[in-house]
C-alpha cells in the first residue's frame, strides 16, 4: 500500500546515517583507500534503496552488511587488485616502520588474506558479529565460516610470527 514503502525507506535511511562509519571501515578494509571506500558506501546505499530486497526490518543489519561486502568484492574483482595507495596510507605505512616491532600492520596483514578470509576476520573479530550473523551475511553455513576463520587465523599467525622474527 501507499505508506508501507516510504516507511521502510525511512528506516533504511536512518540506519545508514547512524552506521555510516561502520560501513565505511568495512569497505575500507577491502579497498584500502578512502576514495574507493567512499564510492563503495555510495554504491551500497544506491543498491540498498533500489533493490528493495529487505524483507524483514529486523534483518536490516545483516542485509546491509551483505550489500557492502558484495559491493566491495565486486569492486575488487573489477579492479583485479591494482592497489592504489594514497598519500595518507603511504605516510601511515612509512611512519609505521620505525616502531615495527610492536605494531602489526593491519593493511599488510589483511592484504595477504584472500577476500573470502578477510571477510570472516573483519566481520567476526572487528565488527564483533556472531558466527551465525557472519554466515548469514556471506551466505555460507556456520561450519564453513568456522573453517575459514581457522584458516585465516593460521595464515595471519604465520605471517606475524615471521614478522616478529625479523
Amino acid at each position, binding site marked *: 500500500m501507499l*505508506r508501507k514503502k516510504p516507511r521502510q525507506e525511512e528506516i533504511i535511511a*536512518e540506519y545508514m546515517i547512524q552506521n*555510516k562509519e561502520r560501513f565505511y*571501515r568495512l569497505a575500507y578494509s577491502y579497498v584500502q583507500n578512502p576514495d574507493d571506500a567512499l564510492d563503495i558506501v*555510495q554504491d551500497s546505499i544506491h543498491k540498498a*534503496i533500489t533493490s528493495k530486497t529487505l524483507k524483514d526490518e*529486523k534483518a536490516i543489519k545483516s542485509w546491509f552488511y551483505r550489500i557492502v561486502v558484495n559491493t566491495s568484492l565486486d569492486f575488487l574483482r573489477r579492479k583485479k587488485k591494482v592497489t592504489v595507495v594514497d598519500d595518507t596510507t603511504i605516510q601511515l605505512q612509512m611512519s609505521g616502520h620505525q616502531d615495527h616491532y610492536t605494531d*602489526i600492520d593491519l593493511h599488510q596483514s589483511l592484504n595477504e588474506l584472500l577476500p573470502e578470509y578477510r571477510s570472516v576476520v573483519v566481520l567476526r573479530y572487528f565488527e564483533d558479529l556472531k558466527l551465525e550473523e557472519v554466515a548469514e551475511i556471506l551466505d555460507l553455513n556456520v561450519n564453513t565460516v568456522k573453517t575459514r576463520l581457522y584458516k585465516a587465523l593460521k595464515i595471519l599467525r604465520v605471517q606475524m610470527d615471521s614478522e616478529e622474527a625479523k
Partner: protein
Amino acid sequence: MNDKKLEQLKEQYKEIPIPLELNRVVYQALEKRNSRKSLYRWGVGVAAAVIIFSTSINVSSAFAKSLADVPVVGDIVEVLTFKKIAVDKGNYQADLDVQKVQMDNKALEEGLNLKYLEESKALYEKFMSEMKAQKAFGEDGHLSVDSGFEIKTDTEQLLSMGRYVEETQGSSMTTLQYDTIDKQNQLFVTLPSLFKNDTYIEVISESIKKQMKQQMEEDSSKIYWIESSDMDPFTSISKDQDFYINAEHQLVISFDEFEVAPGYMGVVEFVIPTEVVQDIVVSDEYLK
C-alpha cells in the same frame, strides 16, 4: 596468533580515519531517493482524518503571539497561523504551524490554504510513521519536526513568505519554500512568470555560480559544490526554483540544506542583481 595481536589489529581497524566527505556522500546518496517532491506528495486517496488538531489552538500563547505579528495591509492579504499541530512524546516532538492566507482572490486563497494544510498533513503523517517505525525497531530514537512560516517581504505591492521545515534526527535538515503574491493584482507570482522566456534559467544559474566562486575565494570556510570533481555539482537552478523578492525589489534564489553546499552552510540564498536579468524580465514592475 594470540588474542593480544588480534586486539591490536582490531584497534587499528577501529582507528581507520573517517574522511570528512563521508557525511556528504551518505546524505547525497540518500537524497537521490528522497527528492523533495516525494516528500510533499500527498496521496489524495489517503484518508484525511488522521490528523488530530490540538484543541487548544485558539488560546495558546504561541497563537496569540503569531496573531500579533500578522501583517495586515488594508484588507488585501492577511497571513496568520491557522492551526497548530503539536506532538510531545519524550524524544519525539512535532510542532507544526499551519498558515492561512486571506485575500480577495478566493480561488487563489483556497488553493494556497489547501496546499499549506496538505503539506502539514504530510509532515505529520511522516513524523508519526517514523516515530512508530523507530519504536517498533526498539530504538530509543530522537525525532523532531518544526515547521512554520516567516514573512520575507511585505510591501504595498508584494508579499513574499517562506515556509520552513526543520527535521532533526541526529542531524538536522532544513527546507524552505516560498510563495510570492502580488497583492494589488491578487496574483500568484511564479519564477517563470517573471521572465520573457526560459533563458532566465541559464542567466540566473551563471550569476549564482559566479557568486559561489567569489564567495569561496574570499572566505575559505565557505564551500559550494560546483567543481566537476564534486560528486553532484550544481549546474543549474530548476525551472521553479524557490525564490522570493526582497524589499529592494531584487530576486533572491534559495537552496535547501545539502542542495548545493555541505550541511554546515545551512540554507543558502543568492541575491540576483537586477541588472543581470534586466533584459529578460517581462516588466520592471516587480524587479527593479
